[in-house]
């Protein structure tokens, strides 16, 4: 089972779970599995066309899936997948 690390701002949609295990073999299946199990995540990860939102980056290991095979990027049982949305804080 691959591991998905959920960022702090999205943990409220995953029962405050930081790490989730998925049976998926690629990123598309990972996203499908996550949004099936946690429907509230969907609008944060996917746009109306079902594409990964442009302010959400997904990394497989250390690499951006946009530099790999996007949603078709394969994941192995020992893969760590990180979801990293844009955050803008710093000042207030």
């Amino acid at each position: 089972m691959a591991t998905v690390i959920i960022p702090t701002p999205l943990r409220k949609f995953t029962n405050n779970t930081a790490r989730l295990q998925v049976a998926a073999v690629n990123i598309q299946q990972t996203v499908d599995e996550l949004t099936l199990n946690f429907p509230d995540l969907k609008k944060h990860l996917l746009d109306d066309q079902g594409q990964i939102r442009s302010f959400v980056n997904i990394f497989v290991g250390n690499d951006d899936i946009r530099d790999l095979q996007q949603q078709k990027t394969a994941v192995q049982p020992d893969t760590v997948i990180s979801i990293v949305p844009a955050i803008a804080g710093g000042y207030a």
Partner: protein
Amino acid sequence: MSNNNPVTFSKEELARYNRHIIIPEFGLEAQQKLKAAKVLVVGSGGLGSPALLYLAAAGVGTIGIVDFDVVDDSNLQRQVLFGVEAIGKSKVEEAKKRLEALNPHINIILHNTQLTSQNALDILKDYDVVSDGTDNFPTRYLVNDAAVLLGKPNVYASIFQFEGQVSVFNYRKADGELGPNYRDLYPTPPPPGLVPSCAEGGVLGVLPGIIGSLQALETIKVITGVGEPLVGRFYIFDALNFESRTFNISRRDDNPLNGKNPSITKLIDYEQFCGMKAVEKPIKEITPEELYNWQVTGEAFQVIDVREQQEYDIVNIGAELIPLSTVAANADRISKDQKVVVHCKMGGRSAKAIRELEEKFGFENLYNLKGGILRWIDEVQPELTKY
């Protein structure tokens, strides 16, 4: 960095920077580069405070600070530049005082203004490096685009609750290769309301201390050329689990600023681009004392509590509970015919609720309880439980 004159140090300066100068990889040469450098720090808040303190202490010769705000008591939990005596005073003025007391050998330039598309290029152009510690997406994209258009490296850091991010954008390596910028990492911002700001979502006070210090570190590396700056890499820190990860990031062909077919050649309207204001228009406020007077004088009003049920169970002031996430769905429960006071724990969520109600439903009768239930307890009902 762009200074051709030999940089010299007084005896006091040499003594002050001794611990830098004796590092073999750093030495007098790097210290000279620091003294010759001009760094612009955008925002003197949570990230700007530690970044400014360390950059000043380290001996960056010229430091510019952009900020238009005044110090608020809710800043002091993390904005370590400021003390109690600074409350209500100009941030840049107070920052200058503190930094000059820390290091009298440097030059501080103040830009007591909001950074906008109209003034950004003019302000940034005189600096070698930009250090972005702002708190909203419009200004993030503005700083990024201005830095790219001017060819300046942009040391980026951002925080939210327990999470921090750092990268060095638009840095040209010695071999001429240009690193990615913010638009390569995040081409477009989240739609308004989907990602809360720190003012609404909160931030652990020490987190900007950690991340702002990393920002100062990378700024010093960019100036001196010592070490490998965080270029083409994206660092994130999760304070809750104490985990940090560093990802590889790349330039993208479709970057509208400097990809294959650039479409942005000058600064744009970033509030329109992000669909949100960089600085929110003020909402009406009421102090606990004023609310108490309304009660006493029999004024007709409704009170709405936008906290969560479990918070309400700990302590409440008899208001109607409509948690923030359900406010829009329950807008019909909120009166339009009389004054309505909206409160939460400290005033952040209730401000957000008011903005949402004003924007979506046209409410004009909403008042934010200043300082939330905590200030109410302090000033009106000290017998209630604080949490």
